[in-house]
């Protein structure tokens, strides 16, 4: 932790050199640190959406969870609205920082009615004056996410996936947060329903001015919803830029191949486009390659890549890339 680090007052969320290690048992009495997130820094402005993409195991979910302190970070600084987020302050800050989870089936308590699910954050933070006020707030939230008032007394299992995700979002919005971590919030939904929920996220942002950290693996969806996109690979951030800039002009070899691997929903483009197919699999995070973690699959890898991890540097207009060769 860097106690002297001063956050930029214009940023709503600022993360500096965040590290999250888990210790994994690798033998009798021996443990190895699993570096799920290894020195990630970024910032989010009020009302902005930052997309966070990467493949499974790259640490994107861990970033989201460590950010709102569902995990206690190993190292690094997180600031919210200029205030340091730590064990002491999180109790009062969690009202402002909420999370929407991926699986709308397991993230809602099956024994609670919709009213109780959405009302629980209100109970925890004592955000109502009377029973009637609580009910009014719940109905307002339900209307906000497009649920009918008569759904209030039903249980989660009576709803479809898309509607359950709406319940989860209403719950996250209950405390009037200024920042929501959306962890694969639309990934489990069917295409037609996914579009409904994406539109709702955008509407809510316009109406309430919330900022999102939108974690997802679907690059088309992330590009659609985000203003800026950050790309992670094996716990490290390799590139960050404006969404359009990243799509048109990706620089890091990993981003380039990731974008080319996306099957594009248009037969002519999809069948003609040249794919850069990466060889092999992502290395195990327990046996991380030295230097740049991507070098084992990178066609440009040199001696230098094995020696040292390149720093994320600005290549103009806030396009940040961590690569020696590009």
């Amino acid at each position, binding site marked *: 932790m860097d106690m002297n680090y001063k956050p930029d007052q214009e940023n709503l969320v600022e993360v500096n050199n965040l590290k999250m290690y888990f210790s994994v048992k690798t033998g009798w009495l021996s443990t190895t640190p699993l570096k799920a997130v290894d020195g990630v820094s970024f910032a989010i402005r009020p009302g902005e959406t930052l997309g966070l993409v990467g*493949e*499974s195991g790259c640490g994107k979910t861990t970033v989201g969870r460590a950010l709102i302190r569902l995990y206690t970070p190993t190292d690094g600084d997180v600031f919210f609205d200029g205030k340091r987020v730590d064990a002491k302050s999180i109790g009062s800050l969690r009202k402002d920082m909420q999370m929407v989870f991926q699986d709308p089936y397991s993230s809602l308590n099956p024994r609670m009615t919709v009213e109780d699910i959405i009302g629980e954050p209100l109970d925890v933070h004592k955000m109502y004056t009377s029973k009637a006020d609580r009910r009014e707030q719940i109905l307002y939230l339900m209307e906000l996410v497009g649920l009918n008032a008569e759904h209030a007394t039903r249980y989660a299992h009576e709803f*479809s996936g*898309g*509607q359950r995700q709406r319940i989860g979002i209403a719950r996250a919005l209950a405390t009037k947060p200024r920042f929501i971590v959306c962890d694969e919030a639309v990934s489990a939904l*069917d*295409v*037609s*329903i*996914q*579009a*409904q929920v*994406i*539109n709702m996220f*955008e509407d809510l942002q316009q109406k309430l001015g919330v900022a999102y950290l939108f974690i997802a*693996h679907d*690059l*088309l*969806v992330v*590009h*659609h919803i985000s203003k800026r996109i950050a790309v992670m690979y094996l716990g490290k951030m390799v590139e960050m830029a404006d*969404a*359009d800039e990243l799509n048109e002009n990706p620089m890091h070899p990993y981003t380039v*191949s*990731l974008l*080319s*691997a*996306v*099957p*594009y*929903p*248009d*037969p*002519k*483009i*999809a*069948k003609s486009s040249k*794919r850069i*197919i*990466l060889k092999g*699999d*992502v290395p195990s995070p327990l046996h991380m390659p030295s230097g740049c973690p991507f070098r084992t699959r990178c066609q440009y890898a040199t001696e230098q890549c094995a020696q040292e991890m390149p720093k994320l540097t600005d290549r103009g207009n806030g396009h940040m890339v961590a690569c020696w060769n590009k």
Partner: protein
Amino acid sequence: MAEEKNILSVVDLHTSFTTDKGEVQAVNGVSFDLEAGKILGIVGESGSGKSVSAYSVMQILEKNGSIKSGQILYKGEDITKWPEKRMRDFRGKCCSIIFQDPMTSLNPVFTIGYQLKEAIKLHTNRKGKEAEERAVEMLELVGVNEPRKRIHQYPFEFSGGMRQRVMIAMALACEPDILIADEPTTALDVTIQAQILELMQDLQKKLGMAIIMVTHDLGVIAQMADEIIVMYGGRVCERGSAEDIFYRPCHEYTKGLLRSIPNVDSMGKRLQPISGTPINLLNMPKGCAFCPRCDEAMKICLEKQPPETRTPDGHFASCWKMIQAEIESGMIRPEDASGSGT
């Protein structure tokens, strides 16, 4: 004759499941043809009956499910009438399947080699060393490095992409004419997905089998499929070539589906989702299955199922809106559209 070209023809297939809540008609009058050596994509959302259609072809439905009516013609023979013993030969030798989740479709307590050899021994007369040679050869074909070493390893020692390669090797070991791939890349990351899709395309060219690709991902379908059928609520909405479906969609559902995926044109704009919620198969509407969610629904859509009709450019769609437009423009006569079949 058209039949010679088609290695598999499904005619008016009805498959349903008996559940506590009543009979669920998962597949409700589905017809399609698969040409030898072509890739047919079946696309639809969850509950559209796309997987059940594929499982019906293999006759590997759950115990409570059965084919109620319809024909599945393999090289002109109706396999729904075949006894189980003959079906066993059909599975593997004539038609194989790979599943979505490579983690759960391999047995964790046997080596990869054992499981591969099992399939080979069962369907061919190769034994012992010969079977092992074939297993190694297959692993090599699907791009597993050091196959001789890896056949002695267990599934947990393989990554997700590698396991899916093993599944493909297993499915192709007996050189089937048809490979059914049920969401083969849904559980994989994009870069691994690209590897597997490329592998499938290569193998298809090399071995010349036909592929039925079941998926919900329009991107994957666009890349892979020659022909596409779009399913909703157990019925086929529209079928035609990949270009027909993506560039000249005629069914309102297909149009809605294409509008709701983000693409270059939609960046910075709002998506246009399909309103409403997915269909409940226990409570099917009398008319068009998509009618409750359709913005263009008319009175007839509520009452009567639309027949499959030829579209202006020659593919097929089942939509009253389109039929009405065709009648108005004089392309078809009203009495042609009043029937319930094609």
